[in-house]
């Protein structure tokens, strides 16, 4: 009797639940930003699901929740027919979910076999059982086509093979669902095909795969269905028959463009910056563009396209192997930030906490940092002048603070960014480079910063603005440079630019 019931239950499960993973209405909030808003997602058993979306769409937040790194605020997760709360990465592994992050979570200084069984070592009375470890690792390695010896140190393996180690590790965890985040970004064509073969083998063995990538042509090649996220929400699911690059792009960016950005018309003047054939081996290929005074040049592209790297080179933080830079039509040598600042270039970096501010110092000390050279008499700081200069910019930029002596670590993101801006505006640059100037900032402060940028352009400052937010790029820029894997793939004028055009240039 009992056996009959069990059989019935088993077959019922087979019919009723074709899904290995069902995510329902997940919300996740971080201070100041709603990363996931009612996101739902399904993965069938033995399916390869593509997950696409722009930078910031919520993909990595979602997979981190599945990996047990973050916890969801609300919503339900059903895995293998059971409702689950994923409490930790260890728990996620136990359930049968394995995530291979883009950065790869391997220990380079120990062997392949030791990595595969890290945390679950085969041991006998506290001593490592190397023969068993290596033998079992070898079996797994054969399954993924990894031909090296299991004792090989991971640091001696090329990236493609390191990825295979991660897959082998996932298999050793008896994963039912493997999530791969940008697995092909460091692979050659041939290696990518090998990976695809392994993914197909996994599918044949009943393992499901979530495949995240920006390379839309690869997505089309390997996946069964595509799930699109946009601005932390579901944008749609595309079935195999309808799957095209255009359709994916349309869902990735298809949002209403509201007129939020008050870009005032500005007179665009003479050329103030020209970059010619700038090359950094493996990072930037033959970059050329110009910037005119009063112009806002947006720079769009995916993470890793080389935008920040390009600006670091122009600003003298990193060296370049080939190319020329002209300021006001005059050739210049920029070997350090000091040189760049002397030529009138300012650089508001991507991460204000890491590179923009000295968190232990006050607003006054941060804001005057670049202008110190002008605020001195015989090496001594002129405190009165420093105070009035900082006060001037605190007022101009409307930085809300009861005192200039407040530590910047206590300020909100928006105010912190304004302090960074104040620091640079205090030396009156003629070229202002902004890298993701409104990232992680609330809507109100965002609008204020846009107004400030717009005013600056009106005063004749040439502005280069890197941004991953397409509406921002479209709203603020006079021209838009799009980069992809170290090259400029296109330049769009304000009138002709659309989100779709930018995204297609960014992915190919």
């Amino acid at each position, binding site marked *: 009797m009992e056996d009959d019931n069990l059989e019935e239950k088993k077959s019922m499960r087979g019919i009723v639940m074709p899904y290995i993973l069902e995510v329902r209405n997940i919300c996740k909030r971080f201070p100041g930003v709603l990363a996931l808003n009612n996101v739902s997602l399904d993965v069938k058993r033995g399916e390869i699901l593509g997950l696409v979306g722009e930078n910031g769409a919520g993909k990595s937040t979602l997979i981190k929740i599945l990996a047990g790194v973050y916890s969801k605020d609300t919503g339900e997760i059903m895995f293998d027919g059971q409702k689950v709360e994923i409490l930790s990465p260890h728990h996620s592994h136990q359930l049968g979910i394995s995530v291979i992050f883009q950065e790869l979570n391997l220990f380079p200084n120990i062997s392949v076999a030791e990595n595969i069984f890290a945390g679950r070592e085969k041991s006998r009375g506290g001593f490592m059982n190397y023969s068993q470890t290596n033998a079992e690792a070898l079996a797994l390695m054969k399954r993924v086509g990894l031909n090296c010896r299991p004792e090989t140190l991971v640091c001696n393996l090329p990236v493609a093979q390191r990825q295979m180690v991660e897959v082998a590790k996932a298999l050793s965890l008896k994963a039912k669902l493997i999530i791969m985040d940008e697995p092909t970004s460091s692979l050659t064509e041939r290696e990518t095909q090998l990976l695809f073969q392994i993914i197909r083998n996994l599918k044949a063995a009943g393992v499901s795969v979530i495949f995240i990538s920006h390379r839309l042509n690869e997505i089309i090649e390997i996946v069964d269905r595509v799930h699109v996220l946009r601005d932390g929400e579901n944008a749609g699911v595309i079935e195999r028959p309808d799957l095209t690059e255009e359709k994916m792009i349309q869902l990735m960016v298809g949002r209403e463009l509201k007129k939020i950005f008050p870009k005032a018309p500005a007179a665009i003047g003479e050329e103030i910056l020209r970059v010619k054939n700038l090359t950094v081996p493996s990072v930037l290929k033959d970059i050329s563009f110009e910037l005119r005074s009063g112009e806002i040049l947006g720079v769009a592209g995916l993470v890793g396209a080389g935008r920040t790297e390009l600006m670091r080179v122009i600003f003298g933080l990193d060296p370049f192997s080939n190319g020329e830079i002209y300021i006001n039509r005059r050739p210049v040598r920029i070997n350090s930030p000091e040189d760049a600042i002397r030529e009138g270039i300012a650089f508001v970096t991507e991460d204000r*906490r890491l590179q923009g501010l000295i968190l232990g110092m006050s607003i006054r000390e941060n804001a005057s940092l670049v202008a110190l050279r002008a*605020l001195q008499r015989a090496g001594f700081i002129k405190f009165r002048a420093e105070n009035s200069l900082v006060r001037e910019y605190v007022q101009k930029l409307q930085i809300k603070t009861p005192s200039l002596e407040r530590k910047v670590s206590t300020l909100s993101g928006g105010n912190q960014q304004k302090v960074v801006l104040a620091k640079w505006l205090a030396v009156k640059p003629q070229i202002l480079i902004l890298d993701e100037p409104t990232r992680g900032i609330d809507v109100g402060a965002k609008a204020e910063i846009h107004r400030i940028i717009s005013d600056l352009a009106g005063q004749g400052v040439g502005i280069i603005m890197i941004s991953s937010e397409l509406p921002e790029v479209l709203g603020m820029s006079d021209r838009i440079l799009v980069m992809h894997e170290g090259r400029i793939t296109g330049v769009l004028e304000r009138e002709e630019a659309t989100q779709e055009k930018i995204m297609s240039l960014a992915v190919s």
Partner: protein
Amino acid sequence: MLQRGEPVKQVKQDKAKNHAKDSYNYTDKLDPMKISLKRIFRSETTGIFLILFLICLVLMVVCRETFPTSDNLLSVARQFSYIAIAAIGELMVIITNGIDLSVGSIMGFGSVLAGFLMHEWAFQVPVAIIIGLIGGGMIGALNAFFITKLNLPPFIATLGTLSIARGLAYAITKGYTVPCPDAFAAIGQGYLGPIPLPVIYMVIMGVSFAVFLSRTVVGRRIYALGGNEEAAEVSGINIKRIKCLVYILSGVLAAAGGIICAARLGVAQSTLGLGYELDVIAAVYIGGASANGGSGTVLGAITGAAIMGVIRNGLVLLDVSPYWVQFAIGTIIVIAVAIDQFRAKYNQKRQLREVKA
């Protein structure tokens, strides 16, 4: 092909944790132009002063007859002045997130160099002193070269020069004690009124460098570099130049401390300063410098040296075995830094609460 156990080149890890942690200086930076009660109350240096004051109070009670005599107190001050002077240089290095382990050896080297020149080659006293200081600066420059050009970690680099400088000191003296002329000894043994000259030198250098660090552009840049090296670089500060400067200054100040000590003793010995680097570094940390770099004051470093000097003196007056003195100093360093961490965390929470309110 790397072998097991060989260092793997790491990708630059996210240093956000270090930067997010607020440095020791928990107060809002109070306006340096205004000297007010508020500033004195909330400054972290006040805390250290308080500790010094308390210790002195305890000793005044326990050693009623021996401690509070002017003879004893001035002698204590003179004893720690050498450490304090070297600690000023070490402070600047520690602010920039570095470390200089060679200060003890430079104290020996600088004094021995000056002594040798005066004794063997009959150099004038002022000239010999200047050359001794330059010698210290050159060892500092060697440190700077190792750290900025060869990119050696400061710990390793100065560990090397620790031996290099001590070796040079031995080589110059061949193990003999170098007697010094009276004119030289007068510099260390003299008094200005009731106050020993070494104490005067300590005060002069203390004030000068305190002004340098708090009121000059270079001083501000030193703090900036220590607070966040990447941000300082992006802001146009020449990282290598500032690092060179602090290591050279550390060398010069260590040599100064050594020369003054030798002058007091009347002889230059190649073993001068042996082991002193630990006291110098301890003085800086007890005086409030943060383990993460970016903060610390001259007054704090000198007070740190004073605390150690007073404690040593107290233990000696109490007839405690010299071995236990070492034990006590070590314990105090750990307690001091632990209190420092505690206060930083407490004040970070306090500030966050204020902001939310």
